[in-house]
Each structure stands twice: as C-alpha cells, then as structure tokens.
C-alpha cells in the first residue's frame, strides 16, 4: 500500500466531507423558519417522483441490453414484482418474490448461456 495512514485518513475525510456537502447543502441554503421560495417548494413537490424513476434506472445501470442475457432476467423479475404488487399490494411480498425469481433465473435458467 502506497499511502501512509494519515494520507488514508485525509482521503476518507474528503469522502465524508463530499457526502456531507451533498446531503446538508439544501438545508443550509433554505434553513427552516425562513420562507422557502415558491419555485423550490414546487421542486420539493414534483422532484421526488422523477427521482424514484431515476433510482430505478440507477439500480439497473450496469445491466447490458446488447450482450449477455440482454437484460431478460431483470425484465422478467421486474414484471413479477409489478404483477405481485398490483395483486397483493404488499411491499415485502413483491420485493421478496421478485428477488427470489431473479436469483432462480440467473443461477439456474440463464447461467447456461
């Protein structure tokens, strides 16, 4: 390992600081008690829905559609999650069902390709 202990600590401290900045900045710019500008209030209402969409894509970002299994196991498992959720409306059932389905698919069905 090339870094000294103090260099490692500084590097980790920078990662901590960077994360703190991204999490605390909105609350520092708009402290509670002060009036939040109308535009920011609007963003606070509409952003989250777009963020949930972005997080779905983010969690699938390393799936390659053009090679390997072409994202087929992921697609099947997501359809299972959606159908289970529309049917049972139970978060845990949908998540567990989709995950088990995905594990079975990639360990036993798609591993031969």
């Amino acid at each position: 390992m090339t870094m000294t202990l103090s260099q490692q600590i500084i590097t980790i401290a920078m990662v901590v600081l960077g994360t703190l900045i991204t999490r605390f900045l909105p609350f520092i710019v708009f402290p509670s008690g002060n009036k939040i500008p109308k535009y920011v209030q609007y963003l606070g209402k509409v952003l989250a829905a777009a963020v949930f969409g972005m997080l779905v894509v983010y969690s699938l970002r390393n799936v390659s559609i053009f090679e390997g299994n072409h994202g087929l196991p992921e697609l099947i498992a997501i359809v299972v999650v959606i159908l289970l959720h529309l049917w049972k409306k139970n978060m845990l059932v949908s998540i567990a069902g989709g995950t088990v389905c995905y594990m079975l698919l990639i360990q036993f069905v798609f591993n031969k390709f």
Partner: protein
Amino acid sequence: MEKKQVIINSLKAAFPKTIPIMAGFTFLGLTYGIYMNVSGFSFLYPLLMSMTIFAGSVEFLAVGMLLGPFDPLSALLMTIMVNARHLFYGISMLEKFSDVGLKKIYLIFAMCDESFSINYTAQIPEDCDKGWFMFFVSILNQIYWVFGAAMGGLFGSLITFSTEGLDFVLVSMFVVIFLDNFIKEKNHASSILGIVISVVCLLIFGPDRFIIPSMISILAVLSLLRAPLEKAGEKT
C-alpha cells in the same frame, strides 16, 4: 399518550418498512466488506467508513481511491459528483424535516437512497411521531449496512454459498416505491420524465456518468413545465 409509548410505536411501525433493506444492505455491506478484505484492509476500515460515510456507491469507489495515488481534491470532487442526487432528496425533504428537532441532523446525515425513499413515501400511523419514525428507519438501515460491512471485513473470505442475484432486492424495492408513488399520484408527468430522461442519459453517457446529466435535464424540464404542472396540481 405517553411520550415513551409514542417512541415505541414509531419503532414498531418503522421496523417492517426496513426489512427489505435489512436483506439488501446486509448483503451489499458484506460484499463491500469482502471487497475491502481482499484489497488488503483490516475490518476496521469498512466498519469506520460505513459509519462515517454511509453512502454505498462512494464507499466502493473509496477503496480504489485508497489504493491509488494520494489525491484528496479529486476524492472530494468525485464524491460530490457521485452523490449529487442527494441534493434532490434534500430539496424534497425540506418540509418533512422542518419540525423534528435535533434528530434532523442525523436524518440529513443518514439520508441514503433507501432511507429517503421510505421516509418520503411512508404513511406514518396516527399513534407514531413522524420524527422518531424517520429516525428509526434511518438508524436501522445504517445498522444493517455497518453490520454487513464489518462482517464482510472480518469473515469475508469464508463465505461460499451462492448469493448471486441477491442484490436484486434493491432493484425490486425501487420498483415497488416507484409503483406505489405512481398509483398514488394524480399526475404522472414527473414519474415518466424521470424514467425517460434517465434512460436516454444512460444510453448517451454510460453507467458511470449519467446521473449528473439526468439531474440537470430533469431539473430543466420540470422547470419548463412548472406552469402546466402547478395548474394540474390545483385542480385535484
């Protein structure tokens, strides 16, 4: 109602919401701990880093930073880039966090993707306190992550059973959260924009660089649509 009872109720309501994350974080934390273990670090590194950083993707990146040349400025900049999505979480949580007292500091510190998603969407029962509920969701999630990371760092090389695909639990969770929100909301414009813009940016910029362009495009389009979307919101 007695204050202690309200706190206990909040814990009881929060725990079930975190069960999928217990599975996902213990597993991902283990993976992270194992990765540090095989990269030659003592288990103290994943333990302390998961406690202080508590942001999954940059903790994985930090392993590479620690193995490379000493460059604190790019460590800082890379962290801000990868974690920039937290800015959107903060803007969405300004109001929900405004009246929870000192717990707010921890809630902001521990606002990972999963805790944000649950705390933003959860229907908090009447007999609970909102602040305590969100606090328990956040701290339980962090406990799972720290536990997994420390275990991975300690026993990483001993695990042999096939957990391949278990990390899909987090994909499933984000799909369910998206779907729940989609069913509840009256106007789907923002949800659909979030998916379409992210997919387009992913195809153009690739998996490591698409988040910032996606955020900028989402912000731009939502700002352009402010008038019609606010009108649609008033009607309902």
